Every structure is written in C-alpha cells, then in structure tokens.
C-alpha cells in the first residue's frame, strides 16, 4: 500500500534533520532546509521529529494515496488541495484512499514539508534518510522524486474507519507558529572570523543595506545581490570549515549564504553566520525577495534557538495528547 507520485515537481526530495559524522570525508549533512517546519510536520501527525519527510519546491509533485493516511503540510503555503478541495497548512488531515494531493499556487514561502503518520519506508544511507544529490545516495534512490515513483508507508494504524466514508477530514487542532508570522527579511547574524577584514564602511553597509536574493539561489547556497563589499586586505585563505548559515564574501564583493547542501570546506572570508533560530525563516525566502542583517550576541542566539526547540517540544506534547484522544474516541 503506497503513496504514488503521479506528476513530478521541480525538486522534491526525502529529507530528515541531516547526516552528521561524515564531513571529514567531504560528505555534507544535507537535510531539510527548514528544519523547524520539517519537525513540525512530523509532530503534527505524531511522528518522531527526525522522521523522513518530503521537501517540496514549487511547482511541486502530485501524489496519489493508495491507502488512508494521516498527513500534515508545513512550511511554505503552496495552496494544497485534496481531490480539488483546499486544505490548510499546519493542521493534520486524514486522507482517504484513492485521493489525489496537489499543490496549486505559490502563496508564501519557498519550501513545503509533507509528513505522513508512521513515516516512509526506505533505507538509510550513513544513518540518515536525507537525499544527497551529488553522491546520488540516500532518500529515494539518491534523487528527486519522479512520476511513477512509489513510496511505501510504514503506518501500522488503519485510518479508514475514522473517515466515515469521507474523502478527507481535518483534525481539529492547528499549530500556531510565531516564526511564520514574522516576515523573513530580518535575519540575525553572529560575527564571522573574517568580519574584521571588512573595511569599516563595508561593515556598516552589510548591516544597513537591503540585499536581494538572486535566482542563483538553491539548496547549496543563497547568492545575494547588493552594493559590493570591500576587504581591507586580500590575504589568501586555505580551505577550512564552514557551516549552514555561513556568510561568505566572494571575490566580486557579493555575499553567499551557505545552506543545507553546502560544501564541507571553503576558502572565502566568513564575514558572519546566520543564527540557528533564523535558518528556518531564511529557508523560506525566495529569489527576488529582500534580506536584511542585524547583529546579535552569542548568548542571545543560543537562547533563541533553545526557546524555539522548547516551543516545538510543547507543540509535540499537545499534539500527542490530542492524537491519542482522537484515536481512542473511536473505540
């Protein structure tokens, strides 16, 4: 009993929270771009937050359910519809068998996440389900989903009786996420090792000007367009480590922000790092949209991420209670 892809999208891949422990071999972590939303999708359907989900870009794939399933869509709003009827984001939805899930319009954000109760049945590569496109490994055959692909669903629950013959049914709870209500343009950064090598004027400029995300932005990195920034000295750097969220200054004075599929090492000046708590909203910025940076101190950055994770944990506790209640109500 499967989930079938009846129309492929532009880039839809299986992702989890990343593959760690292999960067010393040049194998970058990959994983969901917006990890908050990937975890939230799982939590809404009662899964472990680190279960594999499907990361969708617009135009996204269309899916056919061969069995009833409990699903949730989070992150970007691509105006999802089941058999032609709109369904909301951030809310669990029971789907009957023989239903078609489509994504109609790009309303907000850049990446949506589809989680299915019980998870997706597939093999891990190096302890992670994340698709590694360069290595052509992990996820679904190491590639993006294509028409006629079939994914086995692992759920041991039979959701059929809960639908009472309906095509789908919204479960009566929704996650409220403050992170989504904030516009994605204000991004906090920490100083990078080579920040001091920027001229004083360029330091000011980085924090005052509005940058635009260029179309050359993808899962590897975001290329920004702005007034070029200048370095005090042109000292050569040898390759050293970089991180998700690292702001690199390219020789032409433009900034690149490294994202989920970034290289493991780099030799460009690291002028800053986007705080972990803002990776999620950064992942939802689209080409053509503005980005502004402001500085944050290290302690605040840590606290903000810890709060974000605690918030997820609270949602998880609430969802588990509600879901258990819902499941038992039928008996």
């Amino acid at each position, binding site marked *: 009993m499967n989930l079938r892809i009846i129309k492929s999208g532009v880039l839809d891949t299986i992702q989890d929270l990343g593959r*760690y*422990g*292999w*960067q*010393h*071999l*040049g*194998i*970058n972590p990959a994983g969901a771009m917006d990890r908050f939303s990937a975890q939230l999708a799982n939590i809404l359907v009662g899964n472990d937050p680190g279960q594999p989900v499907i990361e969708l870009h617009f135009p996204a794939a269309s899916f056919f359910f061969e069995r009833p399933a409990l699903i949730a869509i989070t992150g970007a709003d691509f105006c999802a519809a089941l058999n032609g009827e709109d369904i909301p984001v951030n809310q669990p939805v029971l789907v009957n068998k023989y239903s078609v899930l489509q994504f109609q319009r790009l309303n907000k954000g850049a990446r949506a996440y589809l989680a299915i109760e019980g998870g997706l049945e597939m093999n891990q*590569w190096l302890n992670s389900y994340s698709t*590694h496109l*360069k*290595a*052509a*490994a992990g996820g679904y055959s*190491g590639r993006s989903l294509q028409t006629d692909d079939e994914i086995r669903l692992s759920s041991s629950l039979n959701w059929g009786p809960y639908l009472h013959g309906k095509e789908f049914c919204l479960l009566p709870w929704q996650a409220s996420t403050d992170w989504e209500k904030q516009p994605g343009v204000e991004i906090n950064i*920490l100083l990078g*090792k080579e920040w001091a090598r920027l001229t004083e004027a360029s330091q000011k400029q980085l924090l005052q000007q509005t940058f635009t995300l260029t179309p050359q932005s993808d899962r590897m990195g975001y290329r920004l367009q702005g007034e070029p920034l200048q370095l005090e000295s042109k*000292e050569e*750097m*040898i*390759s*050293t*480590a*970089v*991180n*998700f*969220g*690292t702001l690199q200054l390219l020789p032409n004075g433009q900034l690149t922000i490294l994202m989920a599929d970034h*290289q*493991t*090492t780099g030799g460009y000046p*690291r002028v800053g*790092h*986007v*705080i*972990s708590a803002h990776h999620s909203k950064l992942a939802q910025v689209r080409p053509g949209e503005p980005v502004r940076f402001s500085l944050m101190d*290290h*302690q605040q*950055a*840590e606290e903000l*991420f*810890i709060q974000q*994770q605690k918030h997820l944990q609270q949602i998880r506790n609430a969802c588990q209670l509600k879901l258990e209640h819902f499941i038992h109500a039928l008996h």
Partner: protein
Amino acid sequence: MSCTIPYHIFPLGDSAMTVDFGNRISPDLNNIVMKLYQELKASPLPGMKEAIPAYSSLTVHYDLLYCSHHRPVGKTVYDWMGGLLHLRLKALDQEEMVSATEMIVPVCYDPFFGPDLPLLAKEKNMSMEEVVHLHTSVPYRVYLLGFLPGFTYLGETDEKLAMSRKMQPSSVSAGSIGIAGRQTGIYSLSSPGGWHIIGRTPLKIFDATRDPLTLLKPGDSVKFVSISKDEFKDY
C-alpha cells in the same frame, strides 16, 4: 606533553567552533589536527555531532539543545564547550605521531584526460613529459577531504608546477587530477571545477556503496604513477 603550538578557538556560528593552528599548509600542523581529530573521535565531547579536520584547523559541530541541558548555570554553551576543548588540547600528546598509509594512484597524463596539461606545460616553459616527471617524482600528503564527497586535497607540488585557479570553472570528470597553487587534488565525482586538469586516474576515489567510502583519507601518503591510455582502459 601538552600542545605547544599556538592555537586559538573561535565560534563558527552558534552550533560549531573551530580551533585554528595557523593559516598555512604544513605537515606538522596537519599532524596535530589529525591527532586531535583521532582523540575526539575516540572520546567525543558531550553533545558533539562531529569533528572535521582541515589543513591546519579542526571544527567541532555540537547539538546546541543537548549541550544547553548539561552546561553549568550561567555559562553559554560556547564557553563551556570551548573550555572542554582547551582541556583536550592541553592533554594532547604531540609526540606520538599518526602513521601514514602509503598509496599508489595510477594516472594517465594524456591530454585526452588532462585537457589543461598542454597549457600548463607551455605556461611553465616545460615539455609535458617534464610536468609529468615533476608531478610523479615525490609522494604527497593527503591534507583533507572536502568540497565534494571524497575530493582529495594533496600537497605540496614542486614550486615549478604552481598554477593559480582558472577564472571560469569548467566541467570536470570523476577521477581527474588537478593543480591549484601548490595543491594537487583528485576530483572524486564529476563536477564543475576551477583547477587545471593534467590527468585522470581509473580508480574509483569515492563510492557511496563501498566500505570504505573513500579510497584515501587524511594523513595518507600518495605517489602518482604514470600509465598509458591503453593501461587506463584495461584497468
């Protein structure tokens, strides 16, 4: 004996920190990096997700949430983890060096596989044979794997072969041997790249389904051996 080489630790965002021993390519610094890497691998710091060795620096990625539950009250996770890393560095036994595995890598230096070989030879006023001779005359150290899964950074080449990167990256086949500055490297996968390509090895440097995943690892000693086009095909 403690680490006597000066170093400093700095944050790489809020989920990682780097210990830097100096911005230069040196076997001694890389030995310390590898020593520290092996110690951390054998006995990880609390909440450590992984350690990544580079030329002369090592980066530790940690689980911020996990660490926040274990740090002493009033300390940031970074200060706590940085303090633990300092202690490890203090206890580091520099004397006992990491032993190198010697590897032979066959390379066909035909311009068919090394499209930039004629240009490099011309630029350096050498014959192509002289370039090949210089490139195969010494063993190289594997300093790090990075950029792509299994991409191998080796050093250092004879000064006479030093060549800066191309202005525009071009498409490079898996197994290609390149030169950038005094580094020489092996493209483990086909990819766009800016290094000057002088040959290709028939060996599979990276294989996602093999154990080990990569043929070479940091600290290894590599000697290139020239093979003919026919030998390449029969490999």
